[in-house]
């Protein structure tokens, strides 16, 4: 395990993570399709997961990997709920464009 890090270097993992996270952020901010927004959020989540695993190996400490398992389990639950919401939004509005979701206006 240590070899891989030696060959590639921790900083590359960090760059990749940051890149993925930024892609996610911009995806969330620019896209109007709710499913794409949703996928972008997943990308951000996984960017963080990647960072966790990388540091876990770097520090020779399994705790970070354990944490990732939890975060993946939670992400799975979140996806299930989120998609269910999207389905019912689609049934009600006939579209999943987030600009149409203005019912929560105060």
């Amino acid at each position, binding site marked *: 395990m240590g070899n891989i890090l030696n060959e590639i270097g921790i900083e590359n993992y960090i760059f990749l993570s940051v890149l993925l996270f930024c892609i996610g*952020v911009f995806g*969330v*901010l620019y896209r*109007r399709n709710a499913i794409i*927004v949703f996928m972008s959020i997943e990308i951000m989540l996984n960017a963080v997961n990647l960072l966790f695993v990388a540091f876990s190996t770097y520090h020779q400490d399994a705790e970070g990997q354990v944490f990732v398992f939890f975060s993946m389990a939670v992400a799975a639950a979140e996806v299930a709920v989120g998609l269910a919401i999207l389905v019912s939004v689609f049934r009600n509005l006939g579209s999943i464009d*987030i*600009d149409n*979701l*203005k*019912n*929560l*206006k*105060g």
Partner: protein
Amino acid sequence: MDTNLALLLLLSPFVGFLFNIFLGKKVSRGVSGTIGTLTVVVSFLLSVCFFAQLNQNGKPFEISLFDWIQVNNFKLDFGILLDQLSLLWLLFVTGIGSLIHMYSISYMHDDENMHKFFAYLNLFVFFMITLVVGSNLLVMFIGWEGVGLCSYLLIGFWYKNQDYNDAAKKAFIMNRIGDLGLLIGVFILALNLDTINFIDLKSGVSSLDKVGGNQALQWAALCLFIGATGKSAQIPLYTWLPDAMAGPTPVSALIHAATMVTAGIFMVTRMNFLFDLTPNVQHIIAVVGAITALVAASIGLLQNDIKKVLAYSTVSQLGLMFLALGLGAYTVAVFHVITHAFFKACLFLGSGSVIHGLHGEQDMRKMGGLRKAMPITFWTMMISTLAIAGIFPFAGFWSKDEILMTAFHENKVLWVVASIASIMTAFYMFRLMYLTFFREFRGTEEQKHHLHESPSLITIPLVILAILATIGGAINFPGSNWLNHFLEPILVGKHEEHHLGTTEYMLMGVALVGALVGIALAYSKYIKQAFVPKPDAEIEGLSKTIYNKFYVDEIYTAIIVKPINAISNFFRTTLEPALGKIVFSFGTVAYGIASQGRKLQNGNIGLYLFVFVLGICAIITYLFIAQ
């Protein structure tokens, strides 16, 4: 074993209450009434057992059920004390209670809520037993409040009539005023003595008196007496009792004649060691009692509602008992309580029988001539009337005579007042009898047609009570004085027995002649001159004042109720809106701020997300800068 029996004695009516309140609707009326009655009979039989045991070995029976309150030095058990006084009370509470339950089975058989009636009656008996057997003032207070509650429930039993509801509320509120007094008295004692257990109080009070705590004791005694005036209907808190006649007649008999109203006398007798040390308060008690006896008797002279007459006579008799208490003659008061319970329960049940026979008519102007139609009711009521009037040899003669004798020895003025009250009693009671049972029937033809003697469930209790009213005096004949000796252990003060001398015989003679004069006056007015009280509108002059109860209710309304109403109105129409404006102005400001903030919630998810990311960036930046 004894503990279990004592608990059964206490809880049996409560079981009856639970049964009737939860299951009463499902079973038939007869079953509901029978179970209600049986649970009280069980208590009565157990009381008799305990009484026999106590009479044999003379040892009071005391148990502590559990530690109740423990604060600093102040410790309190939840305990039961069965001594001479409480057993005596138990006997007639449960005994007369059983008879009245039995009577109610028949009296209430048409009522759709009969199970509720029995539930309340049972609950009442339970609380009355609690009141009597409590080993300290606080347990007694539970019962004290409980009987007040049941009184409220039962007076307002026919809740569809608003007048009855008002009477119930009046009784409850009047009682609450007294209860507050009682509670303050208990607090004063607890504060000064660190105990409110009767047995500890007995020694505590006298030692406190020796170290100069008499002032506190006087206040305590006065407050306790205020409590007694509420429950036992003395001036100034007596006005609820006559109105309480709104309840069904068995309730009037049970609560407002035989048991609950004697709670005040019970309490004062229980605390006799305290009252003996405070002669000033005793003096107040005696005077209040005598005035109450006189005022109530004079109001009773002109009432036309059969139950109202009896109600005022109850107030008047209670006044006589308080007179005896105030003069330190506790056994005499207890004696009169017992005989009064017999004949007054009988009178009320008899009047109930009359009302039952006339299908709800209570106005004596529309009665008359019932002697032939209702012979058993007539004779039992006649006996009780002779007893209450103080005619030899019925029970009331002995007890009332003892009170008069005591008053004669202690204070001649009070004796005169009490004697006048007794003469009035004889007059209005015979007025009641003459108007109800003699001469011609004055009601409608239809009522006349339906006149009938009441069924045996009603007449049997009447007969039993009439027998007791005849021979009840035997428990304390001058000379044998069984009651005096029996109560000796619970009394600390001086102990008087009237030795029968010439004076005593003369006093008896005077009392008897007075009663006969009262009867003769009633006879000449209502039989010979065949006088029937006028309709309400034609009454005038002094009679009108008396007929309207000296306008006491109106005076109370004017000086207490009206000002309170005025203050409430002021608060409601002026103060509350003003305060409300201040409070609402906070709300308005908050609303204004919120409506600005609301604009941010424009429903544009893109914006939300943007702000959200911006926020995260800001936090991260801040964290970096902070480090």
